């Protein structure tokens, strides 16, 4: 089956700076992929290349099997790009704005009216349909931009920092919209700095740093991988010093130390091995009151994958 998006070894240089360096990854239909990386890592450049707005110096990108280099127009019909700095026309109402872009996408007559109504329903912009765009809040403008992006029913959505500057309620609502889009079979490439939110909505993440793709995989897998090096905190009943010595002797345990009555250590193996460790400690007479690995989140994944390289 053809991937919804296949990025194949793209490189983009701006003068002496390699903004994107041999990046490859792919997305399946219905997959929501978080694209994360520090500022200047190459996220926006990659997204702009995927959106046909920039040309890669090397490599190619295929959207639903169509090359951005060979058939940009065909690709544009398949993608919906929501840039971080989206624009809105002055002296235009929400309905006129959507009507213009529907016309620009070649929609006519009843089909246009129907499509506009659909996206307005989906983004819940009903009450604002006759409002001037200039009077909308940032969150509503973001919704409007998303509605505009959906007009031509794209197979791939590229959302560059869609949650930036939104209040918590608007962020939650946007997250729900994105989830619904994924459920409807659209592939979504979504960049954001708010990693906790990405974890809730994304199926997979791609981590980019200094123009290079550091990791790409399903969120669960990557968290599990990170969890293999998890910090474990253990509180025991009785002699903590003795328990510390016992723990330090165990396999996969490193850096065990006593910290305000709690024993903390790094455990460099998986969940199964950690369960075996707990059983072995109990067998050796240690009486654990608490035995918990700190929850791994996307921030841990991000920090473990990236090195803070600047360019």
């Amino acid at each position, binding site marked *: 089956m053809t991937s919804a998006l296949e990025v194949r070894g793209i490189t983009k240089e701006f003068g002496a700076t390699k903004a994107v360096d041999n990046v490859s990854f792919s997305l399946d239909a219905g997959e929501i992929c978080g694209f994360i990386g520090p500022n200047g890592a190459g996220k926006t450049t990659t997204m702009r290349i995927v959106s046909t707005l920039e040309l890669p110096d090397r490599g190619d990108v295929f959207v639903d099997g169509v090359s951005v280099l060979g058939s940009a127009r065909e690709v544009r019909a398949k993608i919906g790009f929501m840039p971080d700095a989206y624009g809105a026309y002055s002296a235009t109402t929400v309905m006129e704005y959507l009507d213009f872009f529907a016309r620009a*996408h070649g929609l006519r007559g009843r089909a246009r009216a129907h499509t506009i109504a659909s996206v307005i329903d989906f983004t819940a912009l009903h009450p604002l349909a006759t409002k001037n765009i200039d009077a909308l809040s940032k969150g509503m403008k973001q919704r409007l931009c998303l509605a505009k992006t959906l007009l031509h029913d794209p197979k791939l959505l590229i959302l560059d920092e869609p949650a930036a500057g939104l209040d918590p309620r608007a962020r939650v609502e946007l997250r729900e919209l994105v989830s619904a889009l994924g459920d409807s079979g659209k592939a979504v490439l979504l960049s954001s700095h708010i990693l906790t939110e990405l974890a809730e909505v994304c199926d997979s993440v791609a981590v980019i740093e200094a123009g290079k793709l550091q990791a790409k995989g399903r969120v669960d897998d990557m968290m599990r991988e990170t969890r293999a090096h998890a910090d474990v905190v253990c509180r025991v009943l009785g002699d903590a010093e003795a328990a510390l010595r016992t723990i330090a002797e165990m396999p996969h345990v490193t850096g065990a130390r006593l910290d305000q009555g709690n024993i903390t250590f790094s455990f460099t193996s998986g969940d199964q091995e950690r369960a075996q460790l707990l059983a072995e400690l109990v067998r050796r007479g240690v009486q654990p009151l608490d035995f918990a690995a700190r929850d791994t989140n996307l921030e841990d994944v991000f920090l473990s994958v990236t090195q803070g390289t600047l360019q």
Partner: protein
Amino acid sequence: MTMDPAAELGADGAPASSPAAPPRSGFFGDFLNPVLVKEIRQSQRGKVFAISLIVTVLLALLACTIMALEITDRTAQPGRDFFAAVYAFLCGAVLLVVPFQAFHAMGSEWDDHTFEMLVLSNLKPRQIVVGKILAGFVQALLFFAAFMPFLAVAFLLRGVDVLVLAVILGLTAFASLWLTTVSIMFSTLTRNRFLRVIMMVMLGGALVGTIAAASGLGNELMRQPDQITDWQFWLAMPQLLAVATFGGFLALFISCNVLSHAEENRSTNVRVLISVGTLLFLIAMAVNATVPTPRMPREPLFGLTIFAMFGLALAGVFLCTEPDRLGRRVAPTVPKSGVAALLTLPWFPGRGRGVLFFLLHVAALVVGALCLAAFTGGRGMTIVGSSGYVDNDPIMNDGGLGLLVAAVYVLLYTLLPIGICSLFLGTSDRSRKIVRVLAILSPAFFILAPAVLGLLIGSGPMRDMWHVGNGPLMIGESFDGSLYDPEAFVFLILPLVLVGLLLALPSVFRALRETSRLSSGKETAAAAPSTEA
């Protein structure tokens, strides 16, 4: 959409639940350019159009009222004065406000970050530019409609010829359309706000000058309506309009090319337009040299051809500094037949192909003008007898030599600076821009550098710019068949031209090799790395 709209449709196709249906436009409205529809809607709601319409109409009304109060029985044909006042305000609206708004409308696409959204829609750059031009034209028509009652009053007050009025209004509408197109082109040239402000100031100045010129011309035609009935007016006017139309299309193509994707073919349309322009120019010259009595003499024929050649040189600077290789979206369009590929080669993008195109068109102009001078029966202007131009000078003495010398200087000022600068500056985007600027400024260098040298070594003629580097001087001096300083011309200028040609030769060979490979299918489009920008 794959989302379930879950909305019941009303009679017009819009869901009944929708609080506001999309603006209706009727069957034909669906086929209108979307940018045109958007721009008209925006201008309807915007302040600029409404305020400028009200202000100009009120000013015209005020001027007419004042003039009406001053009309006496002895005022002869007061309609002309009315027309002069009303026409000045009309010119202000359609030749200043409309083009200026078009410039702003294009520029705001960059400033408001909306351009990329347009590009990602189904719209082609041509649709975007044409939509904005048409929106400007519709605004101009609205201004005309608003001023129509004033013009009717001017006509009723006598002194205004209907034919003259129609011609003036037609030319004004054409000028508005042309200025709108050119303003949009200027707006597309840079996304830098500071540069656009500078451009806006310059454009404003030029437009104010145009208003003054148009207003003066309109009044002149109105006061001397006989000019319009003269057949020479109807011979000259289509030619002037053809030149302006050529310029307008060139501006349109440049705008579209600037807005199009870097991998698209951004050169062929301009090349084809230049070829068509060259052909039309030669046809117009042929008409002027055969139809009117007396026929156009040889000197203006050669003189106009020299102007055309320098215009071609300006375009040549851009064509001869394009990236060498074809873009990845252009390469597959090279004809697979070897002969067809070779014949169409100069019309494809690329530096080497640009050099071939440039040489081909310079040759076409020179040969065409010489053939016209030889075969259409035109004569020189040196001896004017009672029956017309009757001298029997050879063509070379009637400006033919000037034409050949001009061709030499056109090549010198174009190919040599491009060749030398490219050697030292490379072929990056930035270098190409620098090379273009240097090449355009090179005639000044060729003229001024020897003058400075003359100042240093105390050579009077060189200091006074009497030297072979001064192309205009050499062309003017050779117009009657005698060449100024022939030794220096033959032993300095011609070898320099040869050097320019030799420097361009490698890119020509590369273009031939690439075209040959592409037409024979040895090189695929995907394999060809793009340098098109």
